């Protein structure tokens, strides 16, 4: 997906995140990684495997099981001049640190009238699809995006997995990075000299003219797959990768809808009060007269994730469902 003309190489999303961490720590002495099992264990998703040996215990810090404590300590360390990357194993456990994220990180700059900013990066795995049931499968990217004062990014490509971290670390304010656990094994092409990428704009990942598919993270991959299938039927879908859920780059999707006149949002979050609802509402507010058909959403079914595979598959957005909805949307009012 990269448009770079440089030499390319194959890399997994996991490796891309690891490289980004290594690079940041080597580049800036204020940067360190902390979290549960990031060191000796190698990270619960093996993201930081090997980094403790390479970079030493002063930069790769194993923490006890104390989500609120170490996220808060990360905020304090950021206030104290460091640039912490705090890993919370999954967004499900970040609920234990919700107080620190919302009541401290998100509001410190404002409460202090601009005196104290919090340059922390909090990474967490998100998403379902691995049969780990209700307490381990939430996709909360969009839920956190409701909160002013934090930024929320959801890398969907190896390029973004590699490039967003440094930009987030340079950002003066708290940035939450959601890594969909279904993507860690995904391979992609990355420029040998790939570096930082912006974290404030959406990207058109596929040009098209009949409908706009708006998505992010793991659902983007499914949307692109669906677009391929649809292309064979003559339906040419434009596919947008939101990349950053807060602040939301509405310009990109509004322009696209202005061109295609139809939109489907694909979101692994639950439907009610989701980021996809926000996108639909924004199109309502600023793109209403462009629309040839109502904007539709495909979200996760509103159910705590069941363990059984067939039920889990049915709960998540899937390629065939995207294809079906697009067919009905384009066919019906085309």
């Amino acid at each position, binding site marked *: 997906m990269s448009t770079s003309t440089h030499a390319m190489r194959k890399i997994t999303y996991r490796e891309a995140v690891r490289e980004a961490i290594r690079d940041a720590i080597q580049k800036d002495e204020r940067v360190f990684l902390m979290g549960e099992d990031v060191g000796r264990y190698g990270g619960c998703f093996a993201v930081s495997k090997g980094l403790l040996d390479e970079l030493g215990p002063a930069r790769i810090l194993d923490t006890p099981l104390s989500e609120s404590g170490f996220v808060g300590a990360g905020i304090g360390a950021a206030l104290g001049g460091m640039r912490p990357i705090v890993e919370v194993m999954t967004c499900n*456990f970040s609920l234990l640190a919700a107080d620190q994220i919302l009541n401290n990180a998100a509001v410190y700059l404002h409460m202090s009238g601009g005196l104290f900013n919090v340059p922390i990066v909090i990474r967490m795995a998100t998403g379902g699809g691995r049969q780990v049931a209700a307490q381990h499968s939430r996709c909360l990217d969009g839920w956190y995006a409701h909160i002013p004062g934090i930024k929320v990014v959801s890398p969907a490509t190896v390029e973004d997995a590699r490039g967003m971290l440094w930009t987030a670390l340079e950002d003066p304010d708290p940035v939450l990075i959601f890594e969909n656990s279904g993507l860690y094994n995904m391979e992609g092409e990355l420029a040998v000299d790939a570096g930082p990428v912006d974290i404030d704009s959406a990207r058109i990942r596929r040009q098209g003219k009949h409908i706009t598919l708006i998505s992010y993270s793991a659902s983007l991959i499914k949307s692109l797959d669906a677009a391929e299938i649809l292309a064979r039927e003559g339906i040419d879908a434009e596919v947008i990768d939101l990349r950053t859920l807060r602040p939301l780059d509405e310009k990109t999707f509004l322009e696209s809808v202005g061109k295609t006149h139809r939109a489907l949002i694909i979101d692994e979050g639950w439907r009610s009060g989701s980021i996809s609802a926000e996108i639909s509402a924004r199109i309502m507010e600023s793109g209403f007269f462009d629309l040839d058909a109502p904007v539709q959403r495909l979200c996760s079914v509103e159910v705590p994730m069941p*363990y*059984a595979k067939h039920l889990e598959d049915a709960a998540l957005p899937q390629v065939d469902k995207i294809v079906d909805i697009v067919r009905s949307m384009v066919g019906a009012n085309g």
Partner: protein
Amino acid sequence: MRTKGSKKAAAKEAGVTAVDREHALHLLRSMILIRRFEAKCAELYSAMKIRGFLHLYDGEEAVAVGVLQALTPEDAIVATYREHGHALIRGVSPGAIMAEMYGKQEGCSRGRGGSMHLFDDRTRFYGGNAIVGGGLPLAVGLALADKMQGKARVTCCFFGDGAVAEGEFHESMNLAALWKVPVLFVCENNLYAMGTALKYSHAVQDLTRRAASYDMACEAVDGMDVSAVETAARKAVAFVRGGEGPYFLECRTYRFRAHSMFDAELYRNKAEVEEWKKRCPIETFSSRCREGGLISDEDLATIEREVAHEVNEAVAFAEACTWEPLEDLTRFVYSERRRP
């Protein structure tokens, strides 16, 4: 080979009763059931019949088996994601547990929970909680409900050494001690929280000191010795049931296998694991019983045979179970009828 009668005689000679013998067989059988059942789970995981996270209890069997002897059917249990053993010994049907891991609708949680979320209302088995420390406040509340309703029931809550670092641990200990609710906290200290050793998790590594700091009654016991665990648990349960407040029982144990099926075990060396394996709760208890004349090699063979049969039955049951229809996906988000 001795006959049944001569075995009894030998046991008598050694100063043990038939009750002792029955009980020893029961304990041994229980531990072996967990071990073999889980070995089968690991196998089925490789065969992709079981998916998701799977946390095995290898090496720690004496804890669940010892502690659960002290409970009566009206007591409640709150466990963790490493709870196959607890569920089995509590009396949840092995078939229903296996079916759960298969994701079948006849599973004890209807296939919605999987390995980490085994539930059973008949035995008051309140799960199967995959949030480290998340079960502790629930246990306090279950015990509070009993106290409020004047019921002399005990709630037994299992959790690991890692959970002790969580804020919820502290809040729960304080609430339980403050309100003197009938809860037995069982800390399964296996020295590691995933790959993080006790010494990297806790400023003070003697975990009974945590409990003592709330003036909570507490004891540490060799968690590799099922009799020691049982004795300590009986004492603890008597204390709790007697209305004297909560109790903290630390069982010092070790996990022989990886944390889960994804763990490369980079954080500990083989020698350490081998050293601990010498203290295998099944081997040590079985040798002791055989040396004491309580049980024979034949008994052991019988147990193994029976357990193998039971495990196979469970698998056969799970295989024969059915998939919940897709139309039912959205059930159990909310209750289907009001509870009386």
